[in-house]
């Protein structure tokens, strides 16, 4: 069984988030890290492997060369090898362009299962799995809360607006997993040390056979014309608990007549 996991590098949540008004681009100061939602996808693949199914887990990432550290983090979590598409021509890719790059990487190998996280913590867009599945002509289900493998049939339970659906599909398939599907374990020290020694494949657009006009800004189908500030909620108070937080919340509730 060959499993690919698409993982994204995102700004560390503690890093400052800002858009440069001159370029309309996200300014990434500070550290980047592995999209936390993707750890659940890796953990799920590791569990399939641990269940006794002979499995090879590939980590697939589209992002700058500096994302190599994030690739290693993902490998430490449980990958066997990695495929990293790093090319300056990928800058400014939108969803359509990124999905094209990912699909091209995934077509290079015959994966039985491609896993995604529920969403990227920076993009909040959660549809990459659907976009990639469409390019690969594969069945797809998103937001899996549980996943069971039964021979070559995959059974997924997931929440929809009216309750829970069970969905069955044949492999090969594409699935994104909800953050409640499992509790990812912390990688062991040997796993962290060993990540660097696993096979890493770093590709340029040319290596991957991707036409540069179909990705990056050129391959994108949307453009940002300008920026504005949304209306906020108004004044807000934030305190650190110094042992009296409960009293302060009560005072706030009394002041606003929630508690009389």
């Amino acid at each position, binding site marked *: 069984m060959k499993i690919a996991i698409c993982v994204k590098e995102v700004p560390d949540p503690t890093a400052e988030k800002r858009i440069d008004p001159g370029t309309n681009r996200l300014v990434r100061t500070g550290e980047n890290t592995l999209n936390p939602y993707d750890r659940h996808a890796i953990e799920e693949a590791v569990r399939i492997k641990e269940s006794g199914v002979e499995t090879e887990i590939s980590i697939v990432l589209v992002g700058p060369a500096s994302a190599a550290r994030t690739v290693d983090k993902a490998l430490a979590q449980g990958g066997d090898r990695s495929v990293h598409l790093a090319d300056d021509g990928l800058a400014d890719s939108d*969803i359509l362009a990124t999905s094209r790059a990912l699909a091209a990487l995934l077509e290079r190998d015959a994966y039985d299962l491609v896993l995604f996280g529920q969403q990227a913590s920076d993009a909040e867009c959660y549809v990459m799995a659907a976009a990639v599945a469409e390019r690969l002509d594969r069945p*797809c289900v998103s937001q899996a809360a549980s996943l069971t493998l039964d021979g070559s049939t995959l059974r997924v339970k997931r929440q*929809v607006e*009216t309750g829970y659906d069970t969905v069955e599909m044949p492999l090969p398939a594409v699935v994104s997993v*909800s953050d409640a599907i499992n509790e990812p374990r912390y990688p062991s020290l040997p796993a962290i040390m060993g990540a660097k020694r696993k096979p890493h494949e770093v590709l340029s657009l040319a290596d991957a056979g991707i036409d540069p006009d179909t990705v990056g800004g050129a391959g994108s*189908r949307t453009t940002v*014309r300008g920026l504005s500030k949304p209306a906020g909620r108004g004044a*807000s108070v*934030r305190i650190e*608990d110094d042992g009296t937080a409960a009293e302060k919340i009560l005072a706030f509730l009394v002041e606003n007549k929630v508690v009389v």
Partner: protein
Amino acid sequence: MAGILVFAELQGGAFATGSLGLLEEAERLGQALGEPVHALVCGDVDGSQAAALGRHGATVVHVAAGGGYGLAQPIVDAVATLQAAESFRYLLFGASIAASDAAAGAAVRLDAGLVIDAVELAADGGELVTRRAGLGDSVLAHCAFTTPVGVVVVRANAFAAAEDRSGPDAELRTFAPEFRTFSTAARISGHEEAEQSGVDIGEADVLVGGGRGLGKAENFALCEALAAALGGAVAATRAVVDAGWYPYSSQVGQTGKMVSPRCYIAVGISGAIQHKVGMQSSGLIVAINKDANAPIFDFADFGVVGDLHAIVPKLTELVKARG
């Protein structure tokens, strides 16, 4: 390319209220752009129910025959078949589990631009420029399409439907989508309805929302005690509902309920957009979270950075002591 198509989603036999609000917004947009508005319905619907979409702004309703539309991929086939005949300029979807994925699949199939999480639709110089919220809703990006066709997913319930609207029936047209083999390979083999618990969280004056920060199912007792002291009810995030800690009927957010109590107290909740959309219209938002960077603090009126285990039981005692 001409016209605007709105995906009118059936959920449990009725149109999603978000779809109706989106249709009304599309009507306003269509007037500004001089484009007619059509609707697409996938699945079993009776004629009068579909024609009634005319009241919400559709002049023509296309009904896709066949089934399996609880999943996104057959919807992509329906959209692509219809688009081949109609060449709409813009295709609008309200965010939902199936519709968001269908929009993404359709954008790929049609090689059209795609904007997700749009909160406003503006006509600007004869074209649609969507406002998409970014960076935890701290900025609105004005997104335009560089392609003749644009696909938009609008944030859940971004546009409310009017209570009672009148208007002529829409013209009905039925068509048969060309299904692709891979699009129909997955199927829904079982469905569990949301079990209804005793309390209707939509009616509560005060809601205490619990998230994964509670650590385990048993710790929901902390929220229940606080809610009882305040005369309110308990709500939950998808993360804890999916994990089986709390019933689905208590879930707030995009896939759960939209609530607007007088006061919402978020306990161990990070404040993801999909949770926020369900509770941001609450009168007051109080948040208790140990992570000072949690997004919930960006929209809480009163935020406390601290450990819920230390704060919540004490708060409960203080509230009880007053009553």
